[in-house]
């Protein structure tokens, strides 16, 4: 058994680990106008920022109550807040100490300056220019929308009273979708199934692991996966100051990075992207393509099946790898099956702690080294190629590229998500992800894989960009085994309309450095 370190969850913001996981959220963008006033305001806010240990304690309590009651009815409620800072924001607060070489290079230059494929930052709602990048990004999250609204109102009042900080625009609301689409994004696909598990304990008890271990200790993959398919990653990939994932090792860590500023320890980098989605465009294309390709191939291809080839999972969340021909709700709803698959090699069966085989009798994923089942450009295969060969040395390196995703949809749930009509509503995803290096994680995945037609998998002809989020100056396309054709994609159905790169410091850094 691998010795894992204790994380200082009392100092790490709870938004990073374990993550808020709330149905309602508001993002408040703040600019600093007077540093002294801001610091006074920050000093009062520091104790309001959610700590990792309390969020973890709440999540554990919530889970046990839900399990005992068999439902979420009368479940406890919580309200959380996080605070993150842009490079310019830190510079205003800490002056000359904030030198570019102490931080991740992507964070220093900012998202609107980075070539991740976004068009027209000048038209962004937030973050598209130096003047519109928030100095401080506050994320509030709650189980109850009324409680969230009250907290946002309270925070706004404190900002007004501080007389040295201002809100940019309006708070950005986010909420899980309604009804059966809860947990899904606006195209109708279940989201957030695959997350890395963080190695580490919440206390000095080695059994008090942050992410539950479901594999049997006798299974040979016990040290590699927290639960079937959920890979264990050293915490230093997400939080500064801890053992990192070594791109050449299976389980042995790389020593922690030593930040040039000691107070960066327990902090993380946040990528925030306001992604507007156009479900009518997406489903129009899938519907038209399914009809056209059905005729061309004499097969009966549904719009849903075609859309699934683009994503890599069925709308239910069942991965193509385990449900090649049709959706399989049983796989989708089994958390020991819906993420348990490899791409290239045959997926081994794993034994759970209770002695059972994970996934029971559900169909397993076969080896798909040629991309015949899940296309190489499918979104989930592009962003996390798992055991596929990759152009930067392979699966062990791929683990170093993973991020902790903490996003939430925004905008109204479309009455009929697959409707081809444009109801004109602004809806999409507030993408948020934490990592220790934006340059080597988010930007690497986006620039080197998602936006490229021939990476991480190369072939002749190339298989195309990520059809869901890929951006390119050349016309986008995909190839898949369904048909021998370069399927041209229309203009992107996901457009960046705001965002930025931020640093989410430790609680003590906010108290002892940023507000003094």
């Amino acid at each position, binding site marked *: 058994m691998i010795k894992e370190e204790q994380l200082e969850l009392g100092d790490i913001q709870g938004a990073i680990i374990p993550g808020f996981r709330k149905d309602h959220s508001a993002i408040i963008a703040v600019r600093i106008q007077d540093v002294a006033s801001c610091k006074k305001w920050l000093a009062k806010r520091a104790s309001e920022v959610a700590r990792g240990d309390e969020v973890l304690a709440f999540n554990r309590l919530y889970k046990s109550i839900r399990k005992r009651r068999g439902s979420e009815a009368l479940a406890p409620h919580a309200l959380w807040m996080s605070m993150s800072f842009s490079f310019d924001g830190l510079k205003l607060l800490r002056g000359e100490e904030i030198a570019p070489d102490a931080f991740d290079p992507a964070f220093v230059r900012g998202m609107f*300056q980075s070539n991740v494929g976004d068009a027209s930052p000048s038209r962004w709602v937030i973050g598209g220019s130096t003047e519109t990048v928030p100095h401080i990004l506050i994320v509030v999250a709650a189980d109850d929308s009324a409680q969230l609204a009250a907290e946002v109102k309270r925070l706004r009042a404190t900002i007004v009273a501080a007389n040295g900080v201002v809100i940019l625009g309006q708070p950005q609301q986010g909420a899980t979708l309604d009804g059966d689409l809860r947990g899904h994004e606006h195209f109708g696909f279940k989201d957030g199934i695959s997350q890395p598990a963080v190695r580490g304990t919440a206390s000095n008890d080695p059994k008090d692991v942050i992410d539950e271990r479901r594999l049997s200790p006798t299974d040979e993959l016990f040290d590699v996966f927290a639960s079937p398919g959920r890979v264990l990653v050293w915490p230093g990939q997400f939080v500064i100051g801890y053992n990192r994932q070594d791109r050449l090792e299976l389980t042995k860590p790389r020593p922690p990075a030593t930040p040039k500023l000691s107070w960066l320890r327990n902090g993380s980098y946040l990528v925030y992207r306001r992604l507007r989605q156009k479900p009518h465009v997406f489903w129009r294309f899938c519907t038209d393509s399914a009809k056209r390709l059905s005729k061309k191939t004499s097969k009966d291809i549904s719009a849903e099946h075609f859309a699934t080839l683009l994503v890599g999972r069925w709308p239910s969340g069942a991965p193509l790898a385990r449900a090649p021909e049709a959706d399989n709700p049983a796989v989708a709803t089994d958390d020991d099956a819906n993420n348990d698959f490899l791409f290239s090699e045959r997926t081994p069966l794993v034994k759970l702690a209770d002695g059972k085989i994970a996934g029971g009798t559900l169909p397993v994923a076969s080896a798909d080294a040629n991309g015949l089942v899940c296309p190489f450009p499918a979104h989930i295969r592009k962003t996390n190629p798992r055991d596929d*060969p990759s152009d*930067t040395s392979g699966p062990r390196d791929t683990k170093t590229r993973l991020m902790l995703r903490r996003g939430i949809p925004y905008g109204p749930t479309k009455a009929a998500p697959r409707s081809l009509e444009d109801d004109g509503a602004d809806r999409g995803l507030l993408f948020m992800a934490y990592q220790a290096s934006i340059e080597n994680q988010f930007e690497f995945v986006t620039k080197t894989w998602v936006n490229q037609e021939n990476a991480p998998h190369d072939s002749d002809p190339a298989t195309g960009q990520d059809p869901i989020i890929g951006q390119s100056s050349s016309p986008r396309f995909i190839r898949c085994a369904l048909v021998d054709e370069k399927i041209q994609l229309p203009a992107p159905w996901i457009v960046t309309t705001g965002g930025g790169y931020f640093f989410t410091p430790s609680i003590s850094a906010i108290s002892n450095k940023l507000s003094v």
Partner: protein
Amino acid sequence: MKIDRFSPPGNLTDFNDALAVAWSDFISSQIDSEVDGLLSNSGIQPQFYNPSKLDVGSTPAPISWPAFPGVLKATFGDDPEKMFQEGEDRDNQDEYLEWSVIRENGKIKRVMFTCEGPEYWAFIAKKDPKLLVDLYTKIAGKPVPKKDLLSPGGTYRPRNKWNLQFAVHLIQSANNLGAEINIAAQATVLRRNAGHNPITDPIELIECSRFGVKERNSDPHIGDVVNQKARAGCSVALDNPIGLYIASLPKPADLKWKKPDGTQVGDYWKLERGDTNHIVRAVYEVPAGEKSNGKPFVVGDITIEGTPIAFGGQIANALRIKLTGLIGKQGVFHNKTFSCPGTFFAMTKPFSRG
């Protein structure tokens, strides 16, 4: 289809027919040497083959990787300036791409990239010293004295000042065609670990077979793709022309690099040797007459994501390098796995990327 003759890398047209035949024979003998080595070491029919001698109905399969050294990214990634500084040393450029920089008034004026193997140039030096001098003169744009390239006894000096200045061909010890052929050959050997399970992880494979440096982008990836095909029972060869190539020259709209006035750069690439599918030499330089804010500017005035280009490696960072394999049908071979070799075997390999 069998390859009639191995073309020069990049389909270069430097050779007359006699030299072209001799080059093809040279490459063929390199491949045969690897195949013979595999056969004598393993005792079974190798899956690596010579496509000028066998036709297995194969299809081409490109294998590409980021051109900026993975070793440098892993070592200095937290300090980009240091990383790019280290990248200017030709001996650190170990992903089969090397570059040299010409500066004017301290700013970069021209960056020259090469993927040409040292064997090609050594071959020319031996067979046709006049051609050697002519090619060097053409690349340098000025007369190159023969004595700078060849010793009085006629031995070629690959690390001559002209190559160092103009990046005529690869000189880093691991960057050569022999190494490319060797990795492809060695990676067709199926391996098993101590637990007798087939090795499928590329790092485990390269540690076992020792055909390269695991910290690089190229070696583990080439090994991974080749071995995956070998495990599927395919034969594997290298496609003609055998060489290493810049995968493509990135378009300005994808690069989004900026001129001093903040507008997007134009297409400042020049493909100097090779063809569009087999680029062996490319140069990045602002054309004469190009202006920004009404004034001429140079490469060093261009910014990448807000940072001026101060090192050639910043441009290399936008490139990918490729080779093309030939992959036969699945399921033809059912070779057994081999345990990891000891030190003796590792030492007997003719070219080691390690």
